C-alpha cells in the first residue's frame, strides 16, 4: 500500500528541486523583509508621544 502510494507521487528533476529551493528562499527573504519593514513603519508611526498618553 505504501509502495503503491509512493509510485503516484510527483517525481521532481534535480533542476526542479533546485529552482523550488531557490524560490522558497526568495519568498522567505521577501516575507522577512516585509516583517522588518512593517515593524519599522509601525515604530515610526507610533511616535514617541504614544508613551505620554493619559491612562
Amino acid at each position: 500500500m505504501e509502495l503503491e502510494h509512493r509510485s503516484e507521487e510527483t517525481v521532481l528533476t534535480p533542476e526542479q528541486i533546485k529552482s523550488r529551493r531557490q524560490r522558497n528562499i526568495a519568498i522567505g527573504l521577501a516575507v522577512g523583509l516585509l516583517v522588518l519593514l512593517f515593524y519599522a513603519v509601525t515604530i515610526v508611526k507610533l511616535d514617541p508621544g504614544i508613551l505620554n498618553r493619559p491612562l
Partner: protein
Amino acid sequence: MAFLEESSAVPGIAAISAASPRDYIALLKPRVMSLVVFTALTGLLFAPHHVNVVIGFASLLAIAVGAGAAGALNMWYDADIDALMRRTCRRPIPTGKITGREALGFGLTLAVFAVLTLALVANLFAAALLAFTIFFYVAIYTMWLKRSTPQNIVIGGAAGALPPLVGYVAATGQVSLCALILFTLIFVWTPPHFWALALVRSAEYGRAGVPMLPNVKGADRTRLEILIYSLVLALLGAAPFLLGFASVFYGCLSAVLGAAFVALAFDVYRVRSGDRANQCAMRLFGFSILYLFLLFAELLGERIIALATGS
C-alpha cells in the same frame, strides 16, 4: 500561483515550474523599475517638508513593486506578441520558464500588496494613484491602446509618467505644480523615445500586429512628429528652472541637453534611408535615456543638497 501544471510531456514527471527567482525578477522589468524608483524618489524629495527615511523608503518600495506588478501583468497579456519580437522573445513567458497563469497570479498579488502597503505607510490618495497607474498601464495601455491605435504610447505614456507624481503625493498627500511638471516632462519625453526605436524595429512591430506610428502613418510622418515632440520637450525641460524649482545650473544643463535632443531629432528627420537612418534613430533613442536620467539626476542632486543644508 500554479506551480503544478495539468499535464507533463514526460510521463511520471510532473510539470512543476523550474523557474528561478531571477525569472520572476525579469517579469518585473527591473530596468523600468529602476527608472520608476529614480523618478519617484525625485518626486518624493520635492515635498516641501521633511520626509521620514523609513516612510520614504517603504513608499518607494511600494511604488517600485507596483510598477513591477504592472510589468508582470503586461508580460502576461502580451506573451503572444512578445514571442514574435527579437527584443522581447527571451522574456520568461515566451521562453516557457514561467506560465501565463503564474505571471498573472504573481502580478495581481504584487499589485494588491503594493497598493495596500502604500495606503498603510503613506496615504490613501497615493495608494489610489498607484492603483490607477497599474490599471492604466495594464488595462488602458496594454489591453486596449497598444493593439488598436498608433497613439498607443502617447496616451499610454501617462502610466510611465505618473511615478514622480505618486512619490510626491505619498510624501505630501496632495498634487502640486512642481509634481505636475515632472509628470509632463516624462509624458512628453515618451513618444520621441519610443518612436525612435519603432523606426528601427517597425518590421518587427508589423509582424506582431502592433500599430506603431511608423507602421500606420509611415516613417516620414513619424520623423516629423519626433521632431515636434522634441522641440516641445526641449522647452519643457527648462520649466523647473523657469518656474523656480531648480537652479540656474539646471537651466543651463536643460538648455544644452534640449538643444542636443533637438539636433539628434533633426538628424532623424533629415536622414531618411539606409543604415545611417537607423543609426540616427538609435542614437536619438540612446540619448533620450541619458537626457531624462541627467535632468532627473540634477533635480534630485539639487534637492538632496537643499535638504542637507536646510536651505
